[in-house]
């Protein structure tokens, strides 16, 4: 791992999430230590149920840990209340979901504007920034379309524009291509690559090795623990080894044709 100067954007120590299911306790995260630096491009892999989504939700401040520390830009997130977390989600985090999660009744433009509404940005600036974000994902010509009038790949690009529009410190994507066919997946990956080239910090969960291979680093989770951290060039060489060791391939849970709109 290359040493980086200064503070990491994300720093977790002994991060735990436990779910009590009757008499049983599920350790979704079982002590995770991760540092993410500016302009990192990190892929998270691991078998189904290994805690990838749980980790992303923690990092995205959507969920709070049972124990452990999480600092985002040096701020201790576990100490924050509801509204402070909402502000962090709004300003610091851009989240891209597997199922897009667009508002069905709203146009692309309005969907992208939504985070800015909650930061109290005036309508004109909101519109201008939303248009710019849609241009970044090459959807300027689909601004007035509703999700039902867009293809899956286009919907996900709208969702990416929405995640970008408030210029977040970190872009989180939980299986962003999980609901897309392979050609469309490549399109979306190109978008992420470009964003990374522009300096965006990205964490992405994926089940696909070729997608993970585009990332600078790969973190593999197994049973709520970090099993492996590798820099990408090495990862490419070891992909076969890791696959054998971890025993997971492919991408479960592909539900093509789902609209992904609310």
């Amino acid at each position, binding site marked *: 791992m290359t040493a980086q100067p200064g503070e990491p954007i994300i720093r977790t120590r002994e991060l735990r999430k436990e779910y009590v299911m009757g008499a049983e306790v599920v350790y979704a995260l079982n002590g995770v230590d991760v540092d993410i630096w500016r302009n990192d491009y990190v892929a998270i892999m691991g078998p189904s149920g290994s805690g990838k989504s749980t980790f992303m*939700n923690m990092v*995205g401040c*959507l*969920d709070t840990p049972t124990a452990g520390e999480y600092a985002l830009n040096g701020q201790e997130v576990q100490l924050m209340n*509801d*509204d402070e977390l*909402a*502000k962090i*989600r*709004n*300003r610091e985090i851009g*989240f891209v*979901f597997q199922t897009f*999660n667009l*508002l*069905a*009744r709203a146009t692309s433009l309005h969907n992208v504007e*939504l*985070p800015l509404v*909650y*930061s109290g940005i005036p309508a004109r600036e909101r519109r201008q920034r939303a248009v710019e974000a849609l241009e970044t994902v090459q959807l300027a010509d689909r601004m007035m379309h509703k999700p039902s009038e867009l293809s899956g790949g286009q919907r996900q690009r709208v969702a990416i524009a*929405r995640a970008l529009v*408030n210029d977040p410190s970190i872009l989180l994507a939980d299986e962003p291509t999980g609901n897309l066919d392979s050609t469309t997946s490549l399109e979306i990956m190109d978008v992420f690559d470009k964003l990374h080239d522009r300096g965006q910090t990205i964490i992405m969960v994926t089940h696909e090795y070729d997608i993970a291979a585009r990332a600078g680093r790969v973190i593999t989770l197994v049973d709520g623990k970090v099993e492996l951290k590798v820099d990408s060039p090495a990862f490419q060489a070891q992909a076969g080894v890791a696959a054998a060791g971890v025993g997971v391939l492919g991408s479960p849970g592909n539900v093509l044709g789902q609209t992904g*709109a*609310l």
Partner: protein
Amino acid sequence: MSLRQVRAQKLKSFFSLLGIAIGITFLIAVITLVEGMNRYVREDFAGSFFGVNTFSVIQRRQVNTGEVDREQRARERRNPRLRMDDVEVVRAAVPNALYFGYSAATSGEVRRDQYSRRGVRILGGSPQYEAIHGWDVEFGRGLTSVDDRQALPVAVIGSQIAERLFPSTSPLGRQVRAAGHRFTVVGVYEAQGGLTGSLRDAAMLIPFETFQRTVATRRQEVDEILIKVNRVDEMAPSMAAVEQALRVDRRLRPSEPNDFWVQTSSDLLDAWETINNVLLVALPGLVGISLVVGGIVIMNIMLLSVTDRTREIGLRKALGAKRKDIMFQFLTEASTLSVLGAVFGIFAGIGMAAIVESATPLPAAVSPVALAVAICLGLGVGIASGIYPAGRAARLDPIEALRFE
């Protein structure tokens, strides 16, 4: 979202609109009609019955405000009837009166050839009777003191009687018959219309002296003595003078109550006030119940909507919506629904009042207060019924809401 869901959403919105709209409709209709009655009573009824600066002496009180007990009423019923002697006593007590008059009345059938009308109020009025009531003639002339002095068989008839008995000819100079007597029509009063229009429109006025000699059943008796003074501040002293003169004339001891009644238009207004207060409290009370029902409907629909849109709420929170943002969104929705309902209700209510007005003699008047009350009520119901569902939505955990199926 599927088309079915959109329709379902619309249907739900429609029902919450309906709940509020019905409540507001009745509220507006009721307030409009009560307000119409109110204005009517204040401006027309009391006026046409009496006119301003006018009071009358009658045998016993006519309008019952509910404050009089049975015993008192029974005693008043034994009061002596007013006679011509009383008229002279009262006349002497108010030498400065603007107008002074008296009248007696009976009712019966009035005929002309094959035409007839039953239940006509046949009034015997002294010369200034018309002036006191402000009755204007539309055709011909009114009654004069000459008519009275000479007890001429002349009559001025109300517009309804004119229409009935003279559908195609002018009534002026023609004769009508009542109780076996003939009267020559010398004038027709202007139509008054409205709720009490029948008072004048279905009346026939003949000179008091003529009345005495023809249709009167009890000679020398009058039903009321009317006094109109020049200014409002002359009312109280004049009334006191009349009261005093009558008590002296009838030799009442100080301990004895009046055995007559001095009435002003405020008596009528008092009576109306009582009815009005009951209407204004009781009817909106009923309306209030329907609004509460409307509010419950809205609350349920909002709760359903919160459940339906759990994932949307989760997403909004994930994008940075604070509790108050979500709260505001749902409260806005609830109040929009109910204010919209209130606006529909206002139009429907005004329409309903208009229908009632055209179908019955009840007058209607739209008051700005009623409209403001309706809008505020709509908003209030919306906010009140939206608060609980909105609070539930605002407290949802973002990740659980997003995961909600």
